């Protein structure tokens, strides 16, 4: 099996970890309800989506925890190869979810998807090695969000219409135009996740019709942790390390959402 090992930024990693933890907690809490409200296929899709999201979060987490290493100047080889990164991601996933990312019991689809995801990470890390090992550049912009977008883009090319993972956010919080929510995502975020009475961390899923094909879509809210606020917090408008103006977010505000689309 070919593995593309990627190393994540330290900051992004921390944020991701928090988001992942929250997401997992939410999933655990809501699981019986989902199960009871869906058929068994849906339950499997939910599990798939959750696993993809959790793995993405684990990757982001590792990028986040390795930010200091990545941005260190004066050192050439940061010893964050794609393999090392993936091992760390796997370890993180297992630590976080209590089970490995790849198990024997997994359906073939799940396995395919997870592997594609891991391969995407490896590729991204491989592509980023010259950047990471540049001893003259301090902050390198290799942060969890960038990592996630690059992984998701690679993932899309690998799995085609089987699945799609997108990290989006309320429109006003989106920094890259490619992360802009589509019509459905906008409707769910604005109509449900941002609603004051929306149970915290609860994901939304439904089967939607698109171009004559039914697709399973789920969206998992992520909330600003303390580490998120380093770049997205206050004061609003002040430029952060990436050169983007801060959004003025507060601890616990809805910061993003992982949108997953699966073929049915």
């Amino acid at each position: 099996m070919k593995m593309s090992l990627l190393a994540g930024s330290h900051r992004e990693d921390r944020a991701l970890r928090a988001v992942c933890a929250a997401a997992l907690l939410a999933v655990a809490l809501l699981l019986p309800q989902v199960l009871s409200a869906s058929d068994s296929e849906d339950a499997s899709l939910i599990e798939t989506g959750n696993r993809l999201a959790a793995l993405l979060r684990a990757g982001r987490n590792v990028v986040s925890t390795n930010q200091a290493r990545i941005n260190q100047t004066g050192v050439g080889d940061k010893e964050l190869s794609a393999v090392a990164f993936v091992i760390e991601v796997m370890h993180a996933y297992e630590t976080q979810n209590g089970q490995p990312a790849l198990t024997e019991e997994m359906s073939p689809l799940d396995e395919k998807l997870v592997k594609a995801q891991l391969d995407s990470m490896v590729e991204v890390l491989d592509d980023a090695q010259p950047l990471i090992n540049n001893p003259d550049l301090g902050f390198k912009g290799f942060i969890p969000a960038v990592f996630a977008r690059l992984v998701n883009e690679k993932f899309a090319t690998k799995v085609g219409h089987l699945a799609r993972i997108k990290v989006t956010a309320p429109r006003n919080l989106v920094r890259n135009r490619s992360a802009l929510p589509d019509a459905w995502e906008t409707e769910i975020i604005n109509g449900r996740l941002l609603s004051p009475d929306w149970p915290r961390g609860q994901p939304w899923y439904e089967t939607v019709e698109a171009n004559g094909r039914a697709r399973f879509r789920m969206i998992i809210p992520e909330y600003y942790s303390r580490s998120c606020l380093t770049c997205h917090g206050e004061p609003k408008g002040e430029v952060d390390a990436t050169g983007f103006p801060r959004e003025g977010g507060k601890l616990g505000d809805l910061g993003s959402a992982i949108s997953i689309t699966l073929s049915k």
Partner: protein
Amino acid sequence: MNIAIRPPRLNRHAIPLRVGGLSAMLLGALVLSSALMAIEFSANQRRIAEATERFHRLQIAADAQREFGSMRYWLTELAVSLLTLSERRAQDARGRLEDSLDELKTFAPNAAAEIDAAAQTYWQTCIAAVDAYTDDNRVIGNSLMAQARQRSDGVNVIIARLVRELAEEADRASSMASVASGAAQTRSIIACIVIVILGVVLTVVVLRSILSPLRRINRAMAALQEGRAPRDLPPEGSDEFGRISATLRILHEAQRARAALEEAAAEQRRTVITAIETIPDGFALFDPADRIVMRNQRFLELFPSARDLPEGATFADFLDAQIAAGEVEFFDQTPEDWREGRLASHADPRGMRAQVPWRSGWLLVTKRKTPDGGTVAVYSDISEMLDRQVDLDAARRDAEEANQAKSRFLASMSHELRTPLNAIIGYSEMLIEDAIDSGDTGNVLDLERIVSAGRHLLALINDVLDLSKIEAGKMEVYIERVELAPLIEDVRLTVAPLVGKNDNTLHVDVEPGIGTIETDRTKLRQNLFNLLSNASKFAKSGRIELIVRREAHMVRFDVRDDGIGMTEAQIARLFQPFAQAESSTSRTYGGTGLGLSIVRHFADLLGGSVSVVSEPGKGSTFTLRLPAAPRAQQDLDGAPTILVIDDDKNAQLSLGTVLRRAGYTVLTAGDAESGLEMARRHRPSVVLLDIIMPERDGWSVLREIKEDTLLCETPVILVSVLSDREMGLAFGAVDHLVKPVDQTRLLEAIERLNGGRPREVLVVDDDPAARGMFRRLLVREGWEVREAADGERALALIDEQIPGLVILDLMMPNLDGFETLRRLRASTRTSELPVIVATSKDLSRREFEWLGRHARDVVRKGEDGRADLLAAIERHVGKRDGIPREARPGD
């Protein structure tokens, strides 16, 4: 004249008007220029505003250009990064571009619309390209972006054209504003220069109009200061310079007047100094600090030691110099005492007047204080005057002695003649009576001729005696109240035989109710008798009139005859003794020529007068005027009045108290004038007179009293701190008391003058009938009478108790009157005892004089003796000496 150089119009105005006018004109120019500037400024402002507006438009266009550029940038950026941040910024830029275009629409709507549409298309193309990139459609994206670039170029061209056009407009507007502003600046500078020139010219004109007169006034003031007359003054007028000119002229006049006054004062001072130098007495003026301020040459001649006194030497220095030079006679004083005395008298605020011994003679030193406390001292050398006084006194004494010798001779002659004549008349009458008794009347006629001749001779002798008595000063006056009508009748009866002798008729015309007259009855009778007999003598078969009328306070007796009359020359000689109108008259008409002389003397004695009006051949009218009442001597009913003239209130009070306690009425006067006025009004019995008084001193009062015909009889006692007794008595005072006054001496002096002794009289006469007659008379007058028959007995009685008055006969057994009087005067107790001698003895001049010195009066016994005695008692008791009033020196 400088008037020509001044602007005549301005010259009429006052300085404030000129300065105000100048200020007003300058301010007006300032206001005008400011207004012009304001207008220019406002126009400029408009032009600048316009230019600014153009620039503003340019700015808007430039903004639009910039915003479009910004929008294009961010869209390009978006296309590359796909960051929402770039999109948002592109949107912001687009918003701003639209704002700019909105503004642009207001002045360039077409361009704005064109740009807006082009920008809109560009935007849409760009977004489409970005969407394509986002969806990873790079080919479509690139294609769209290429389209978009073309569109943006088109927009750029439009905006650039607009910006260029607007820039050109703005430049034009700006340059126009700049040109207009330059023109306005030039105009302002020209206006400013014109105003400055105008201001300078006006200031020069106004300043000249003020400064030129000021310079003239300044010159005039300088001239005034140097005492010259101011010339070239501005003409006087109502403006300031005119007023200053008037003031300066007045000042100059005042200066001149002052100079004239100073000259006059200097002249006056020279005159005063000349006068002071000219006065024959030594003169010195001391200031309040007693320094010698002024002294004349005579002063230095009197006191040569004063020549060497330094400037500012004092009176004390002067005394020291006198002592040092030995000019002073100290007598029994030490020089220190003398000096102290002089200083004390010099410092006396009342001044001083004293005779001081000086060299071989005397100086009269008079000092008076000036109002400012200085002292004026006059030193008169009176040695010569005193010598002359001594000579005069001696000459007068000689003359009086000669006159008295004549009178004594006449009296003696008359007495000697009368004694045999009495015998002749008496024996002739006896022979006539015997012849008639025996019937042998053959000789009667001859005898009657003898008697007639004898009587005539007796009358002559009596007249001579009267005259001699008058001239010897022995004629007494006894004033009593006389009923006129009976007296005239008595006279008429008496003169009837005389009148009838020449066939004259006497007509008596007495005013009805003529009343009484207080006068000497005997002398009035004798006068009327003399005048009537005189008239009878010079008229033949004529009419003689006696007319009696009351005339104010006088009684007028006219005796008129139609006789031969007199010429003026005769009238002039008429009243001289032994003179008749013509020396031949006595041969024709008889008479001694003494009658009218006696008439005149008696009239004088009684305080009246006699005059005559006559023409030859037209008769004569003799007019006798006598006072109806004698001058009041004192109020006999009340207490005697004493007048105190003294400026010292304390002296007035103490003297007044003493006198009032002694029973006198006291009047006081504080100064000379009021004192004299009171003396004239109240006729006091005695005047007590202080010497040193302000304004008029006592000496001057005393002189005026003694020169006054009424006041001269009033005795004056000097009461002073000065001890010039001799001088006081020489000036007519009867006594001189030195302050502080001894009460006893004062009262004694006044009592002597007022007869204050007990009203007890001692009559000394060997004839009991005479004593009885005196006693009756005196008791009736209120006297207590004691009697003594001779001198010895009288002296014994006087020794027992001193009476108030002694009436003394001369011819007595044992001790005659002369010896008695001599002994009385020899004793101190009785030296001042009033004694009236009553005698029938015809006294020798020597006896008369002796009695005059020692007795109060001498009266003759006889027909009128009683009245004479009473008159003598009333008038002379209390007199200090026996000199009868008429003969007192100084009267």
